[in-house]
Structures are given as C-alpha cells and as structure tokens.
C-alpha cells in the first residue's frame, strides 16, 4: 500500500475532496508511524489519538454527505507544547506547568488552533520544546531531549525541536512552532524542513504561552513551500484578541498565489558576514550553490554590510530576558500548575514553587532579565538595548526601502546540527548560535529557512531568506518555491 505520509498537505486536501482518499486513513497512517518511531525520536509529548481519529471520521462523514469541508481537510498537524488546544495538556515542557505530573489543560483554544479546526485540520498532538521556548537544542525540556531524525546522537535544534523533528520524520504533515530568536528557523534547518517566522503581528499570539511578547511569533513547519502557503492562508488573519495583530485587511494577501517560483529580476542581498570564518564551509557552499541556481533563474545578487548585526545577540538577551522575567512572574503556584505544598508561608510557597518548578536555563534567564530591569541598571542595559534595536531595525529597513532589495539571503545557522551536550554547559556559546536568526525578530521581519541539501555527514543544511515587512512574505515564497525546484527537500529514509 502507498505510504500516505509522503503526500503533501495540498495533495491530501485535493484527494480527500475528490473522494479518492479518506481522512481516517491518512490520520491512521500518521498515528501508526508515530507509534513506531516516536519512542526513538521523542518529538511528541502528547498524542491525541482518539480526538484525531474522531475528527478525521467527521471529515469523511461530511464528504459522504456531500457537505463542504475546510481548506485543510484531513491534514495532520502537530502543535508545539506552548500553543493552547482546548482540554489538552499544555506545559511549555516545564515542571511548573506539571509536565510530568499533572499537566495544565488549556481551557480555551489559541486563535491559530481555532482557525485550523475551522478549516478541518486534524490535530495529532503536542510536540517537545526547550522549556518555555528558551534554548536552541530542545535539551532543556522537562520531557527529555528530542533526537534529530537524521542522526539520533544530535540535537534537532530548538526551541521548536519537536515540531521540526516530527515534520522531518513524517510524524506530522505540518507542525506549528513559535519563534522568538530563531526557534522555528534553526530547528527547520537542522532537520531539513521548511520553517517560517511571519512578520511580527501577521499571526495572532492569542493562546500562545508568552516568552518575550514583543518578539514571539507563531509559524509553520512543512516539507513543501505550497504547504507553508496553505497554512498561512488559514492562520494569518487579523485577531482583535491580540493587540499587536495587524489590523489592515489588505495586509493579508493570498499566499498560495506566490508559489510559482518566479524570481526573475528579484534583487537579493547577501550580508558579507555570511562568508566569515565563523560560518562552516559546508554552510557557505550550500549558500553559494543556492545563489548560483537562483541567478540562473534571473535573480540578481549583491553582497552588503549589515553593520549592527553583530550586536543582535547582546540586544536580544537583554530585551528577551527582561520580557521573560515579567511574563514568567505569573507562575507562582496560586492559580494553575505545580505548587510547592510543603510551605506554610505565602512567600516561601512562591519561592519554593518557582525554584522547584523552573529548570536551570529558565531560572538563569529570569535572573538576567530581573537584573537588567532592576533599579540602577535599567538605563545601562534595557534602555540601551532598545536604542540598538532601533538601529538594527533601521539598517534592515534601509536595505529594503532605500537600496530596494526584495530579500536578504544568509545562513540560518553557522553550523549543521551539533551533538548533545556540545553547547549545553556553556550558555553564551548556545546563545551565539542564534546570531543569524535574531536580527529578523528584532526588526519584526518575515524570514524562512529552506533546506539546501546535505553535508558530507548526511546532515541537513539550511539557507535563510528575510523579506521586508508586509508583502515581503510573497518574495520569500517565490524564492523558496524556485529553490525547491532546484534543490528538493532531502528525503529521510526512516
């Protein structure tokens, strides 16, 4: 029998609507594969077997009755464990939300989940992540590490490592993740799939457990550009429940109209630091290869300087930790999640709960964030970081609006997937691995990581494309489609 997990999301929807495929069979094929492979990869923290099969049967029934079905009918989707799905566990991979004991259950749906369900997607379960999305390797999860399906001795990247690994190993057709400093794009690159961070405000954050609210954005993982576009058609809508959701209706164009791969005359900038010694040779070679094949299709390239990008990591670790220290103040054991019941004094209860509930990386970032906001240090750190953020943002804007580039192309990560433990003992080294992804978060720009072949160790490599805000996503999708025709997404034999 044909392996149904090889179909793209668009193929699944088309065949279900044509009655040549049953949603139940697709769902079952994915659940069987999860049962077989998840124990070695640990991409999922929770599987909604029953509700997924029920939803799939419901779709088949609608088709049998001649009723209309949604634009994602029968597409199996996985959700990162920080996105609310009503009556399902949500722990952000943290013991403070009861990860291994009594997980918090969401009393409502995130906006994106509501949209997916309205369009008849089938939600398979929840994927592993770094605790509270703080990490680049999925090593800080309370559920244990997720393994990279290409090499089980290596990390899948992070923080959305479970989502990336699930799509790469065909344990989900689509997954959603969240990206604050690269948490969708870097794992997509490490696992050989596509991962998109939309423009800030393009996708509602309603129902996303907050890390750094001014930078967080939800986005999709897929194995085809057309599938990224399909998901964006569904989840990118104005939502009054998120005050930063972009209110203009013209902003949300048609994403599926831009996947023909027409890159002729697009002007693409490559930041000169992409060729520095800090970037592995195999990454540089794949960037060069991508440049050459896009040139053949009529795209024009120029090297540029992005002078303030080297400060991006410093700015990020001030702003993101400051926001996190405030956002995570809500976890005090009173209203939900884990509580340290051994304490008889309220303050001791708060402290006991937070110290036992949060892992080390989260505590480290809360401490850093509290420090940079504390009296006497606020101007020297937080205020200064905001000023540098505005400098970085202006530099990006001038590339697009003054020098008229359509996109910026650069590596997603300076290396391919690293081994477990390689960076986890040295927080600064781990933070510096985000050097190429943080800029677009600080500037609020859309950015996608696309697979660009394998290196000699059979590990996937990724190229990142950043676009201008607003309609910038259209050129990203065009470039991604063109690239995909020249360099297909690597197929994982598993």
């Amino acid at each position, binding site marked *: 029998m044909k392996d149904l997990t090889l179909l793209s999301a668009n193929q699944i929807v088309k065949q279900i609507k044509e009655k040549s495929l049953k949603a139940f069979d697709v769902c079952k094929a994915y659940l069987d594969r999860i049962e077989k492979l998840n124990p070695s990869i640990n991409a999922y923290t929770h599987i909604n077997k029953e509700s997924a099969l029920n939803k799939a049967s419901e779709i088949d029934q609608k088709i049998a009755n001649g009723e209309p079905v949604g634009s994602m009918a029968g597409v199996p989707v996985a959700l990162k464990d920080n996105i609310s799905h009503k009556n399902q566990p949500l722990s952000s991979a943290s013991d403070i939300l009861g990860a291994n004991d009594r997980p918090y259950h969401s009393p409502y749906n995130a906006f994106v989940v509501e949209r997916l369900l309205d369009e008849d997607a089938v939600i398979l379960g929840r994927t592993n992540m770094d605790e509270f999305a703080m990490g680049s390797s999925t090593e800080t999860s309370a559920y244990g590490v997720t393994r990279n399906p290409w090499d089980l001795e290596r990390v899948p990247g992070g923080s959305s490592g479970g989502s990336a690994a699930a799509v790469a190993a065909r344990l989900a057709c689509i997954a959603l993740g969240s990206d604050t400093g690269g948490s969708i794009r870097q794992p997509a690159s490490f696992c050989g799939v596509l991962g998109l961070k939309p423009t800030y405000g393009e996708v509602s954050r309603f129902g996303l457990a907050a890390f750094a609210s001014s930078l967080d954005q939800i986005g999709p993982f897929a194995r085809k550009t057309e599938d990224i576009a399909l998901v964006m058609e569904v989840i990118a809508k104005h939502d009054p429940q998120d005050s*930063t959701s972009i209110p203009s209706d013209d902003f949300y164009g048609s994403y599926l109209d831009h996947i023909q791969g027409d890159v002729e005359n697009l002007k693409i900038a490559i930041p000169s630091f992409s060729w520095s010694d800090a970037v592995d040779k195999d990454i540089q070679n794949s960037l060069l290869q991508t440049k050459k094949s896009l040139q053949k299709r009529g795209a024009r390239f120029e090297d540029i300087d992005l002078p303030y990008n080297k400060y991006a990591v410093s700015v990020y*670790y001030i702003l993101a930790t400051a926001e996190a220290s405030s956002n995570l103040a809500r976890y005090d054991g009173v*209203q939900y999640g884990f509580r340290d019941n051994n304490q008889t004094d309220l303050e001791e209860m708060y402290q006991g709960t937070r110290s036992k509930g949060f892992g080390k990386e989260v505590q480290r970032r809360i401490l850093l964030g509290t*420090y940079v906001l504390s009296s006497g240090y606020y101007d020297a750190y937080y205020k200064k970081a905001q000023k540098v953020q*505005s400098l970085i943002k202006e530099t990006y804007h001038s590339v697009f609006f003054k020098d008229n580039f359509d996109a910026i192309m650069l590596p997603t990560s300076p290396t391919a997937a690293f081994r477990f433990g390689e960076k986890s003992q040295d927080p600064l080294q781990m933070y510096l691995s985000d050097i190429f992804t943080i800029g677009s978060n600080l500037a609020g720009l859309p950015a996608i990581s696309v697979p660009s072949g394998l290196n000699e160790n059979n590990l996937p490599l990724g190229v990142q494309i950043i676009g201008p805000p607003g309609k910038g996503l259209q050129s990203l999708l065009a470039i991604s489609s063109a690239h995909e025709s020249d360099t297909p997404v690597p197929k994982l034999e598993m």
Partner: protein
Amino acid sequence: MLTVKDVSYIAKLANLKLSDDDKTLFVDQLNTVLQHIEQLNELDECLAERSSSANHKSSLQKMILREDVVSPSLSREDILKECAHASKESFIVPKVVEAS
C-alpha cells in the same frame, strides 16, 4: 561584575530560592554573558542622540485595544479545576494575616 551577594538579591526580587551551588554557578555564567553584552558600550557615542522609543514600532504596528464592554468569559469551574489547591469558589493559599 556580579557577586554572589548580587545574585542572592536578584533571586529575591525574582522570587527564586537558590542553593549555594546554584548561586556560584549562576554568578559565573551571568558574568560571562554580561561581559559579552558590554560590547554595546562601543556604540555609546552613536546612541547619545537617540531616544529609546524612536522607530521601535513599524508602521504596521498600531496597538488596538478592544472596546471596554463586558463579554462572556471562562467559567469559574473551568478555571478552578486547574488550581493545585482550591475550594469550590476560590484559590486557597497559605495564611497571610496573623492573629493579633
């Protein structure tokens, strides 16, 4: 440079209780990160004239607050079932008022 005393103070502000080993570990790790962050001082001159809010939001980002009208919310029952220690009506916490 942060000291163990500084880290103890910040931990108190953040409602965290750290063991002595953790304090020592965090002092070293946080100092390494803070040393890296000091690179921002290179920009002091160029930042002098800038305000921190300039250009912070793009033109797309207009914060819109909803109208101040009452709308249905989650039920008390749904909320309380997530609490580690609750009665039928409220969250229960350790006593905060001492008898005189």
